[in-house]
């Protein structure tokens, strides 16, 4: 069973690598942000699999923290980072 979990974890890691293409290409900032969101979820899955495969229960806590904080960056992106070009493009 550990081999299978490790294999799936490796497969998920490769998924992340392929997904990087979307971050590089964009084209819009929201595209990139949601890809990062997917990476967070994939990271949670990888950590859970590793915790089981390597018998390191502490990694479950890492997955828990990752799951808890996964949304913080997205929220910051939506509320603080991305501008509405139609509204503040012509200020002053």
């Amino acid at each position, binding site marked *: 069973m550990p081999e299978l979990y490790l*294999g799936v974890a490796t497969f998920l890691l490769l998924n992340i690598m392929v997904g990087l293409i979307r971050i590089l290409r964009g084209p819009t900032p929201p595209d990139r942000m949601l890809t990062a969101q997917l990476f967070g979820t994939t990271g949670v899955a990888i*950590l859970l699999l590793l915790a089981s495969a390597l018998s390191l229960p502490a990694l479950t806590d890492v997955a828990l*923290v990752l799951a808890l904080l996964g949304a*913080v*960056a997205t929220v910051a992106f*939506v*509320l603080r980072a991305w501008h509405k070009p139609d509204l503040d493009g012509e200020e002053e």
Partner: protein
Amino acid sequence: MLSLFFDAVLALALPLLAWRVLTTRDLYRAVILFIAFGLLVALSWARLDAPDIALAEAAIGAGLTGALFLNTVGGLVGRKRSPSRESDESREVAERREAIQSSPGEPVDEVMRPWWVRLALTVPILALGLALGWAVVSFPEPAIDLAQQASDNLEASGVDHGVTAVLLNFRSYDTLLEIGVLLLAVVAVWSLDLGRVRGGQAALSKGLPVLHGLVRLLTPIMIIVGGYLLWAGAKQPGGAFQAGAVLGALGVLLVLSGLVRPPLSDGSGLRIGLAVGFAVFLGIGTAVMLATGELLNYPPASTYGLIIIIELFLTVSIALTLAALFVTAPPRKEQGSKEHSEEKGEES
């Protein structure tokens, strides 16, 4: 075998990603790549059998730092909008920026790097990399095994988890000074007077109720998880830093979603909260001198209790520090409506 393959993918991905983060000119893209990088670093720590650091990296590297950078990029965009007509050169830069941009509102790094600068930087960095690789490969078997010494003395350290023992007992002086660095960081940021630099405005007007719902759901869970990590630190991975990071993220969420007003209501309250961890640590460290004659030398009978008290206050201060760094502005004495109207005035 499989684990080797997993590590190989990680080892290939990390430098590749790092290189892309550094060479990308679009700042949004760089930040989001950096978030992905933080995630992979957390996975690497997990593979290196260092769950304590993986915890901290998952919270700070993949979560909070990304949010901080995004906030900064938003602030940069806000800045760039206003006058860029000082000289012909800056207009030229602005035009080039327009040309590079793939979408409106995307900030772009404007520094031009001629080829000879790149070459001049590449050569020594390559040399450094080679030297480091050579050095690491040629490591002898160290004459001293500090890890062994640490676990031999674990009994006397008052806690059952090696990392916590090192951080709060064997090398507690380092940790004390590092907590000072955190406090100092806030003061240094305040000294920049960035009060009026804020991230961009909300890109949504609807949808906030959903966000508020999430924050209300997460608030108790994050408090529980923070408490759990703090409590667990005495015998398994966790501790004040990880707990503080989770609670700090909660603070950032509360500030972002508008459920708590940015300069956390009362200036002196915030100051006390920021300083209390350092003050308690320093106070206990000094007070035990009366009993044992040395700075930070806890009396054996009360070691565990003192460490827990220190960690409790550290958690509060670390969490507040992270949230305060996100708000950036120092708290003002005359609060409330004025601050709010200032902000409004800027946005319109």
